[in-house]
C-alpha cells in the first residue's frame, strides 16, 4: 500500500477535487517569479467569478509576510492563500510551472527559497473549510508519485484526473475481477 494512503486523511480527495475545475488549471505556465505565478492563477479565479480584483495583490502581500513554499519531493509545492473576505466563491487554482520558481519556505524564515513546480492557489470562503483543504492537500503532497504525475501532466484534464479521488470499492473490485 502506498505510504500516502494514511496521510491522505479520512476525507479522501473529494473535497479538494470538487474545487479544482478544469478552467482553474494552468499547465506549462511560463511564470518566472512567485508573484507572476500568483497573478496568472489569480486571473483564472477572477475570470470565473471566484475572486475579486484585489485577490492577487492580497495573496502576494500575505506570501511576502508568510511564505507558503513546501519542501516536497520530488518537486517543490506552494500553497498561497489569503483572507476569506477576498473570496466570492470557493475554488482552487492549480498551476503546473514549466520551470521551477522560487518560493520562500513556510515555517522556516531563514531557509533558502524552494524551486516550486506546482502551485495550489487556495480561494476558500469558509475558514473551517480552508483548514480541512490544507490538511487534505498536505496528505496529497506526501506522495512523490502523485507530485511527479502532476508535474508531468500535459493538460488540465490530466491534472484533474490525478487529483480525483479513486473510490476504494472500484479499486478492490478491479483487483478481484
Amino acid at each position, binding site marked *: 500500500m502506498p505510504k500516502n494512503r494514511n496521510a491522505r486523511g479520512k476525507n479522501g480527495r473529494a473535497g479538494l477535487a470538487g474545487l479544482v475545475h478544469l478552467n482553474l488549471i494552468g499547465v506549462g505556465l511560463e511564470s518566472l517569479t512567485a508573484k507572476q505565478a500568483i497573478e496568472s492563477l489569480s486571473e483564472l479565479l477572477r475570470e470565473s467569478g471566484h475572486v475579486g480584483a484585489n485577490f492577487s495583490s492580497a495573496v502576494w502581500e500575505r506570501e511576502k509576510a508568510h511564505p507558503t513554499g513546501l519542501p516536497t519531493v520530488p518537486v517543490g509545492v506552494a500553497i498561497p492563500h489569503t483572507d476569506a473576505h477576498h473570496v466570492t466563491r470557493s475554488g482552487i487554482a492549480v498551476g503546473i510551472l514549466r520551470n521551477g520558481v522560487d518560493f520562500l519556505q*513556510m515555517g522556516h524564515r531563514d531557509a533558502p527559497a524552494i524551486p516550486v513546480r506546482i502551485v495550489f492557489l487556495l480561494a476558500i470562503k469558509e475558514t473551517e473549510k480552508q483548514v480541512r483543504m490544507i490538511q487534505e492537500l498536505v496528505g496529497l503532497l506526501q506522495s512523490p508519485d502523485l507530485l511527479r504525475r502532476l508535474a508531468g501532466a500535459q493538460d488540465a484534464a490530466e491534472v484533474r484526473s490525478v487529483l480525483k479521488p479513486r473510490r476504494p470499492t472500484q479499486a478492490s473490485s478491479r483487483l478481484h475481477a
Partner: protein
Amino acid sequence: MQRLSVRIMNPVGLHARPAALFVNAVSDFQSTIRIRNRSTRSAWVDARSILGVLGLGVESGHSVDLTVSGPDEREAAGYLKALLESPMPDDQASR
C-alpha cells in the same frame, strides 16, 4: 526530557500561519522536539517539519503532546506551551 500536553484554542487549529509560527519557534531551539495530535492518536512527528506538523490535522479544540529533549528543553517547553496556548492573533485566515 520535558513532556507537555496543550489544548489548541486557536480558531483555525495548527494550520497555515499558526503552524508556520510554531515550526519557526521550534527551529530557534537546540532541543529535539516531537509532537503528536493526541485527539486523533496520530504518530509522533518532528516538530521542525512543516509538512509533518500540517499533516497532524490539529483542529481547534484538539490536544497535542510534545516531547522536548536537549540542552534548552526547559526554556523550549515553556515557550512552546505559551505559544500553543495563545490565540496567535495575527492569523488572517481566522478573520
